[in-house]
């Protein structure tokens, strides 16, 4: 069985293995043991509410209970830009017009902003190669929306994700080469790495503060602004299906887009329902295709658990769970759990009747 739970001390080795396999592309999880240890500590402090709510870093592990191994990770940063400065470029338009000469010129312009400051970010998604099937990526990503909605007071109304921008097989980014490297004499992969270990705002201090007029950049750089890396296209589609949209901001290094949504508008949130648990000892076929499964969360802040069960388990008032599922979710009969479809267009849990509380 695959289950989502808070990241723990014992996940360090598995995390290190995954980060090493992922290589340079994954900015937020560099293969650095000390750094990963720090992240685990922060996650533990966050789930146990031992840190300021704004400092919360909620990291979720996807555990394969048969292998007793962490095979994936995803995260929520409660607020960005409070400790350090969080930078983006806003892609906007400058118009210069002269009626006298009949000239009207629109110039796309990048403005440096801190617009995402104090906003919740979803981040750090990584799934081990061996488990990239059967909707595991969706579970890892979407479980976060159930957490966000159940514990809204810990987060901002809006959440966002920074999508990885375009770089080639050698790790060279056209935007970095045309812009960032003119101000900071290192390669993109190194800048990206420094970002991952928390030095992004240091680099940003060296970046241009005045607006950048795009016609001054080469074509190769202009065309990647707001575009995602090929490997990130599926993740972008998934977020778009959830209702996330490009908000006009791009990464200051590689030009990757920022997408955002209000929590109450996120599809997983809108389509989820709550049901009381009914533990059923009658054998149940759990192994059904992803299309027919739904996510179940135990709605616990400190011991958050999510797994998937067949949609057929849901009835108008209850959800029937086999004892082994109830055990990993740490729930008993009568507890209220939350259900949401795993796949886009997947079976909806039976709709909440009007007036019924969720």
């Amino acid at each position, binding site marked *: 069985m695959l289950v989502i739970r808070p990241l723990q001390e014992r996940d360090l080795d598995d995390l290190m293995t995954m980060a090493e396999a992922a290589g340079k592309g994954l900015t937020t999880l560099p293969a650095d043991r000390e750094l990963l240890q720090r992240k685990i500590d922060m996650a533990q402090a966050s789930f146990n509410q031992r840190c300021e709510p704004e400092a919360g870093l909620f990291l979720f592990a996807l555990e394969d209970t048969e292998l007793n191994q962490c095979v994936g990770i995803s995260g929520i940063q409660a607020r960005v830009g409070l400790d350090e400065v969080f930078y983006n470029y806003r892609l906007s338009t*400058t118009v*210069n*017009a*002269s009626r*006298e*000469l009949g*000239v009207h*010129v629109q*110039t796309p*312009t990048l403005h440096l902003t801190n617009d995402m400051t104090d906003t919740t970010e979803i981040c750090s998604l990584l799934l081990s190669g061996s488990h990239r099937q059967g909707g595991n990526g969706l579970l890892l990503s979407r479980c976060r929306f159930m957490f966000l909605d159940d514990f809204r007071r810990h987060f901002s109304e809006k959440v966002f994700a920074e999508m990885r921008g375009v770089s080639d097989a050698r790790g060279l980014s056209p935007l970095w080469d045309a*812009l960032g490297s*003119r*101000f*900071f*004499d290192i390669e993109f992969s190194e800048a990206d790495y*420094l970002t991952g270990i928390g*030095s992004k705002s*240091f*680099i940003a*201090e*060296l*970046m*241009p503060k*005045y*607006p*950048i*007029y795009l*016609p*001054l*950049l080469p074509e190769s750089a202009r065309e990647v602004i707001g575009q995602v890396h090929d490997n990130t296209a599926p993740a972008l589609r998934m977020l778009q299906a959830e209702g996330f949209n490009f908000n006009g901001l791009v990464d200051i290094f590689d030009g990757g887009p920022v997408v955002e949504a209000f929590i109450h508008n996120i599809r997983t949130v809108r389509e989820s329902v709550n049901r009381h648990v009914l533990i059923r000892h009658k054998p149940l076929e759990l192994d059904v295709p992803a299309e027919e499964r739904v996510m179940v969360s135990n709605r616990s802040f400190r011991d958050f658990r999510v797994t998937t069960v067949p949609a057929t388990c849901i009835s108008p008032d209850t959800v029937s769970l086999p004892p082994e599922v109830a055990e990993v979710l740490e729930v008993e009969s009568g507890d209220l759990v939350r259900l949401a479809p795993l796949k886009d267009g997947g079976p909806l849990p039976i709709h909440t009747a009007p007036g019924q509380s969720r």
Partner: protein
Amino acid sequence: MWRVRPVQQGDLKDLIKLAGDHGSQVSSTLPKTEEALAARIEESVASFAGQRFPDHYPRFLFVLEDLGRGQVQGVAGIDARAGNGQPFYNYRMDALIHASHELGVSRRVDVLYPSHALTDRTLLGAFAIAPKLRGTEAFELLSRARLLFIARHREWFSERMVVEIQGIQTEDGKVPFWDSLGRHFFNMDFDTADRYSGMLSKTFIAELMPPNPIYVTLLSPQAQEALAQPHPMTKAVMALLQQEGFHAGHYVDIFDGGPVLEARTDTLKTLVTSDRKRLRLAETDGGERCLLAASEGGDFRCILATVSESLNDVLRAPPEVLQELQCESGCDVTVAPL
């Protein structure tokens, strides 16, 4: 013999020829159409006749006259106040240090800031001369006569002076600085923009020029090389202005990136070394070759002459000198060494 005097309506034909000769290769702030030139002459005539700052923004044009042939071979101008009541546009070259203590990095970043700081300084410009006269005494006469005019009418002009020097243009007429920067915002080629700036009000510059500072490192390598560099053809003009005490500061032209030279009016060599004397008729042989200017406003004349000095601040010159200056014996003149 050469003489510099205020422009007159009758000079229009000669001026059109000069502006045309100068033409596509060299930009001058002189208008290129007949209509605009005529208007400019009229403006100058009114300025010499007594229109004064602050009610007016006087713009003076002087011509270099070949007295033998009665032909105009050069023109030079002074705008009493740069911008003539409107903003005067330049880029100011400045630098920022982008430093990170944590990363141990410090980097100099060159930036061009749009600037109006030179507005209302006195501007020398509209300089054009027949190519064969470049580097001759006549060339020096035309350029420096303006400074003697300023010396004789000092209160009409500002504390500081500026001159825009033409920037780099390739043999096929391309202007690298413009092509890398201005073209994107003005959506026109350099010649068109240059023509408009000679003809129209400066409003279009305010409307079309990018309002934010420009990072030099984002310009094309050719544009970066051209920044603050004078066109090779301006070498003689530059040399003369530098001798006068003009120096390149931090400002460049917004169109071609050419340097803007600056100076304090009262420390210009011509102003410092010139003297007010009486000029008397006398037969002399020999003496010093110098610049000699006489009379005020529209009667201003300036020539090259050989004069001898006597006691009591009196200069002696033969009759033809007085004739060329159109003044009587005993008149007051300003004299400056070559």
